[in-house]
């Protein structure tokens, strides 16, 4: 394994010198490739890759853009990288099999779903200590946080609930039953709607966070695509709350949903088995990870068009774009 790693590092070093300073970097975890591919958000070209531990899946970045966090699922820890140098700076304890996580809006702490252990682990990113372990349902996966930072949402894939966790007390204050295999939880920026995707159920539950009840269930219907292939996973909401993008897995489409009426407006054809989504900071672009075609599709958000696909590593899983 030493040889490929050394080669990666070399390629990266060579390319970085030519990178314009203003572009943002897009980081994509490759679950089977055990590395992270780096894309330039302006040129939309791959500028390199670096090793990221075993089975990297969830990925996020601190609000100040100084720390890049990767769930190294088979290493049972979170690896922290300097986004500038791509060097690993330290690791964080995560509990077993971390899959997805979410940062508190302030950048600390980090809330991690431990898929094998029915726990959400809370970790202080500065002291690197575990602050709490919160028992949740079977196979916790999706992690969302309210814009005011008061609630963290965990979805459990086999229990089929969205658990509302109070970030002060670490207690579960409400459980909302949703359709089968909830994968992802995403608030709109106003905090008035919480979107929970259900992979096997094929729906997105729109939850009113104030009452913790489902107000609407969004279904999807694509001509020529079998209903079983429509499997909602990742979701992102534009900052004005008006447009919601939902990755539909093996349907190879990203659904565009009206954030006000909860109606599906359009379906965009992307690569195969699309799972996670990430906006560029200006929300000009949305990047999608396509696990079966090993590429990233770039969506022009305003035009609602797929403008490019970029080959990355083996089985791309998560994506985050640096804020600066």
């Amino acid at each position: 394994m030493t040889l490929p790693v050394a080669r990666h590092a070399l390629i990266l070093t060579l390319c970085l010198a030519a990178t314009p300073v203003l572009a943002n970097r897009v980081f994509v975890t490759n679950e089977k490739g055990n590395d992270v591919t780096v894309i330039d958000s302006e040129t939309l070209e791959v500028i390199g890759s670096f090793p990221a531990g075993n089975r990297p899946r969830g990925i996020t970045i601190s609000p100040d853009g100084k720390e890049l966090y990767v769930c190294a699922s088979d290493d049972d820890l979170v690896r922290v990288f300097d986004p500038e140098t791509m060097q690993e700076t330290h690791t964080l304890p995560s509990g077993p099999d971390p899959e997805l996580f979410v940062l508190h809006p302030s950048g600390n702490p980090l809330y991690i779903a431990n898929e094998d252990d029915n726990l959400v682990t809370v970790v202080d990113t500065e002291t690197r200590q575990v602050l709490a372990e919160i028992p949740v349902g079977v196979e916790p996966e999706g992690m969302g946080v309210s814009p005011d930072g008061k609630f963290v949402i965990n979805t459990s894939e086999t229990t089929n609930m969205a658990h509302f966790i109070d970030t002060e007390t670490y207690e579960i204050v409400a459980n909302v039953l949703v359709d089968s295999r909830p994968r992802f939880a995403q608030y709109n920026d106003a905090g008035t709607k919480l979107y929970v995707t259900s992979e096997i159920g094929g729906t997105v539950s729109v939850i009113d966070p104030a009452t913790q009840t489902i107000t609407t269930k969004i279904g999807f219907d694509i001509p020529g695509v079998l209903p079983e292939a429509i499997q909602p996973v990742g979701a992102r909401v534009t900052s004005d709350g008006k447009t919601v993008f939902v990755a539909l897995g093996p349907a190879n489409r990203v659904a565009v949903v009206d954030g006000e009426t909860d109606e599906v407006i359009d379906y965009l054809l992307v690569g195969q088995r699309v799972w996670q989504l990430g906006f560029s900071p200006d929300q000009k672009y949305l990047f999608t990870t396509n696990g079966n075609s090993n590429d990233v599709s770039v969506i022009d958000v305003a035009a609602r068009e797929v403008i490019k696909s970029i080959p990355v590593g083996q089985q791309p899983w998560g994506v985050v774009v640096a804020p600066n």
Partner: protein
Amino acid sequence: MFRRIIILLAGLAAMSGPAWSQQGADPVLIRAAVLRVDNPGLPPISRLELPTEDLGFAGARLAIEDNDTTGRFMGQDFEAVEVTATSDTAAAEMDKLLADGIQFVVVLADDATTLALADQTGDRALILNAQARGDNLRGADCRFNTVHVAPSHAMMADALAQFLVWKQWQDWFLIKGSHPQDQDLAQAFQRAATKFGAKIVEERLYEDTGGARRTDSGHVQVQKQMPVFTQRAPEHDVLIAADEADIFAAYLPYQTWDPRPVAGSAGLVPRSWHPAMEAWGATQFQNRFEKLAGRNMREADYQTWLALRMLGEAATRSQSADPAVLKDFILSDRFEVAGFKGQKLTVRDWDHQLRQPILLTTGLLMASVSPQDQFLHQTSALDTLGIDRPETECSF
């Protein structure tokens, strides 16, 4: 562990329960049983497939853990009594379970015993068949009180046939064993060939004459016998073995007269589960099972897990612990369950068979999953596998 429990209890106390009401402080108990009927017989051809003491039960234990974790949020607690029997004692054991008021019994038994237990039970319990594959149990001998979690022979044969036809391997040389269950499986392959446009060029009977199989010189005999047995067959693309009794099929790969792949009971084998399956979140499921049982998950474990998860899912969705409500819910068109197969699994109303994708497996890997994309169906692609509504012989 202690700390976790404290946090959990605190969480429960604070839970306002907006979507349902808690039924008092004590959780409601939902009881089930797993009845495994073991019959004496030859050991399997490969010692890698020797039965384990906890076969099936380990799957039940994982299901109860999963159900209980969810149950904590619902005020529900689950239990599965584990019972082993022989075909002679199965009826008495079932009587005990019924007398104890258990209304959900997962049965791991052969076709005849499963049917007898279903008839004995009547409307006193719901039988969840987690082993028997006979098509008659879903056809002429179907029973309203039985849900078939295990896939049928017809589903297995159709799953394999779709793949072989997609490969354009349409000429099959069928070898069947001499036991009644081999005959059932062979019939399923004949039906699948007709259904998907394949041709059986010859059907040959492998007579089970007894004799040593796993002696120290067994492989020498096999290397001589199998080529001789398979010679002078008409031109064929693939050899299909129907050997439910596990007498000869495992000896066929690489020992055939003609250099042809083997499928069916050996070679490319259709299964409900395989321990190397990693798609659709299965990795974490395999991990959880292996941590609990200290071994790989087998089909009996998967099917038992799935049967008890169906019960758990019904309890969560119906928000009830009333056995009558749960039975109705499982048999209703609102019921669906996730089983790490990439899509929801539902129950066919015409014969109570659980719809499910079938894995096509080689020794160490899953090679493909059926239904294959090319085979279309007006209602569900899963209904391209097995006996569809218009052809069912079942009437409840």
